[in-house]
């Protein structure tokens, strides 16, 4: 074998040695920890890549949640909290490895996060293997709480796509209690789009609404006129538009004057920057549901606090997923206060099942069967006035958490 191979081999071995040495850096102790031992929480989410802003919102919300729930002490049951952040880079196998690193090398006692459903799905089995509770927010795929992916270590404070669908139907039912109206959907031709449309169709039909058309647009397309023209001809009374990311169809919906053809737009309110893209719809914005917008929660001391603090810290209002981060923190602290700082799943899981916890949108509780948080959403009007920087969701009513109970998918 040649000398050059020797050299390369030698260098690689040294690299392995360094790596192995670094790999063993987790201090002894931790575990279910006694009085006073630091509580390590692993927080992993999309901090780079396409969903970066969602991860960053979660991060801000999580810190504020901890601050509020621990009264700015950042300790719970006498245990100081240590958070280790990881970036999934929005790639499932990297997400899995970094989660593994958190669980094993950093010996975290709890995991939270995941903005991308793919990332979450890839890591679910690890929580069972390492017997560590995970609090997921905002990854929304129904698949996460469905068999065979779900396991009892998984708790989700974020909503599931099924709840969104039911919320949308609830909005319609509120307007037309007797059913009988026609609806259509417009969504991106992607996993996300279908994950939102399928439960909606099921729920809408069950409620007696007539689904005329389901249109899908290639996610990168800048021209949706074929789909929109078809929709305009079909002239459903309501069009449920689902969109995330750039190239939203609002401008074209306005140009092709769907609203003039009698179509009322309904949608789930997106984050603020995407709300800005809805401005072309002008004052006939539409109706919809909203997971969180900072002015919506009514008489919520917690939300008022978070909004104020968020303005202080970050000079802007909290957004869609900030509330989720807060909720995750709240769930964790609430649970740990009950268990006295014990994170052993045999104690923690029974505690968290059915547990109620306070969040910026109101009280939520983890459903017994699949640990999905039952939560209120909001019915809103989309309103815009001259000078608004974005379409503003304005409160109509609370969609109660008992109105939007999604099907149990894990076989329990």
């Amino acid at each position, binding site marked *: 074998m040649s000398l050059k191979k020797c050299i390369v081999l030698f260098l690689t071995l040294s690299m392995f040695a360094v790596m192995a040495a670094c790999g063993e850096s987790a201090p002894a102790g931790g575990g279910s920890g006694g009085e006073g031992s630091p509580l390590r929480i692993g927080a992993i989410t999309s901090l780079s890549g396409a969903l970066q802003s969602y991860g960053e919102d979660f991060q801000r919300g999580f810190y504020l949640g901890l601050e509020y729930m621990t009264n700015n002490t950042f300790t719970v049951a006498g245990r100081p909290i240590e958070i280790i952040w990881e970036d999934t*880079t929005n790639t499932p196998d990297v997400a899995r490895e970094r989660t593994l690193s958190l669980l094993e090398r950093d010996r975290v006692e709890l995991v939270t996060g995941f903005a991308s459903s*793919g990332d979450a799905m890839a890591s679910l089995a690890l929580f069972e293997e390492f017997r560590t509770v995970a609090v997921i927010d905002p990854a929304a795929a129904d698949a996460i709480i469905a068999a065979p992916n779900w396991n009892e270590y998984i708790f989700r404070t974020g909503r599931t796509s099924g709840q969104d669908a039911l919320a949308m139907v609830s909005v319609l039912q509120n307007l037309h209690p007797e059913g009988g109206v026609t609806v259509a959907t417009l969504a991106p031709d992607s996993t996300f789009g279908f994950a939102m449309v399928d439960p909606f169709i099921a729920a809408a039909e069950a409620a007696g609404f007539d689904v005329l058309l389901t249109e899908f647009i290639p996610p990168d397309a800048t021209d949706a006129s074929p789909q929109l023209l078809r929709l305009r001809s079909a002239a459903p009374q309501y069009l449920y538009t689902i969109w995330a990311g750039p190239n939203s169809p609002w401008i074209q919906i306005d140009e092709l004057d769907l609203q003039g053809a009698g179509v009322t737009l309904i949608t789930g309110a997106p984050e603020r920057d995407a709300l800005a893209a809805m401005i072309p719809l002008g004052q006939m914005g539409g109706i919809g549901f909203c997971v969180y917008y900072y002015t919506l929660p009514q008489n919520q001391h917690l939300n008022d606090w978070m909004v104020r603090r968020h303005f202080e810290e970050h000079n802007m209002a909290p957004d869609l997923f900030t509330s989720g981060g807060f909720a995750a923190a709240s769930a964790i602290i609430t649970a740990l206060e009950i268990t006295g700082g014990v994170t052993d799943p045999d104690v923690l899981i029974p505690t968290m099942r059915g547990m109620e916890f306070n969040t910026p949108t109101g009280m939520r509780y983890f459903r017994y069967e699949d640990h999905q948080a039952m939560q209120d959403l909001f019915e809103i009007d989309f309103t815009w006035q001259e000078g608004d920087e974005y379409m503003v969701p304005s409160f109509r009513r609370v969609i109660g958490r008992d109105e939007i109970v999604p099907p149990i998918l894990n076989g329990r």
Partner: protein
Amino acid sequence: MGNITSRFPNLITIPKLLWLLAGIVILIIPPISTTATITMVSRIMIFAVYAMAYDILRGYIGIIHLGFALFIGGGTYFVAILFANVGISIPILLLAIVGTTIYSIIWALIVGKIAAKSGLLATAMITMAFAEIMRNMMERWRTVTNGLDGLTFRVPAPFDNRTFMYYACFVFLLLMAFALYKFTTSPTGRVWQAVRENEQRAVFLGYDTNRARTIALLVSGVVAGLAGVMFALLNRFANTDVLAMQMTYNAMLYSLVGGSGSLFGSIIGSAVVVLFQNFLLDLRGVHFIFERWLIFFGSLYILVVIFMPKGIMGFVETIRERWKHKKGGKIYES
């Protein structure tokens, strides 16, 4: 050291000692490391095979396959779909392997036909299109594949034991490396290199370049497909990202960093890049600049192409040449 080696030149040599050391290190990693490390090294070994397969095309016969992900993706999905929908057992795994092999053979033959009549760039673009089409098909078939959200599944014993999986990956790497080594040093392998150097001349010399190319594609495709099978077994998860362009870019980067045209280079390249990425991600706690790790990672592509176009192996070779000239003669070889 010099005395011993001069007295027993073939018995104890530094190179052999290093190989032995390497072998020992790899063998003892599982008991002394965390699961995360074991998984990472397993992943490196699988990607090493994937990169070697890619390099057969790129570094040996000279085809740029911009859709290479479709081989590893195919292997991953065969396992994923069968395990998630049919059942989890060794016989089904074997079925997946057979399926992957057939699938890879078909795609290899198709690309072979195309590469025979199209130029380098055209083949590159066509293969890119193929991978995109496959990815789209898997997205559409979401009732089975669950699209971008992906499929989770369990794996049959003993693959569910991480240590076993690690050694399985190691054996896999050794087998594939050996097989590919045999191919590249065989007469067919020489024809590959002749084709890469100058296809017209190879034809004039009487070589059947189309046959050589087809064999290269078959070998490369099947090996990459098998890497996909191992990948699925390791991750217990599959989504359409495995067919995306980034997965092909990974193969390109690993083989480039290691050194194109060298199987060993691909192994080294995979190790270096995966370790580098993990290193960057570990640093994010140290300083916030590392949160933008993609900048460093993208720079890796650029810097390697500019400063180390022949990869690590080539770089070492250059150093060695210079050292040889300085020393004026005595070369230490085994």
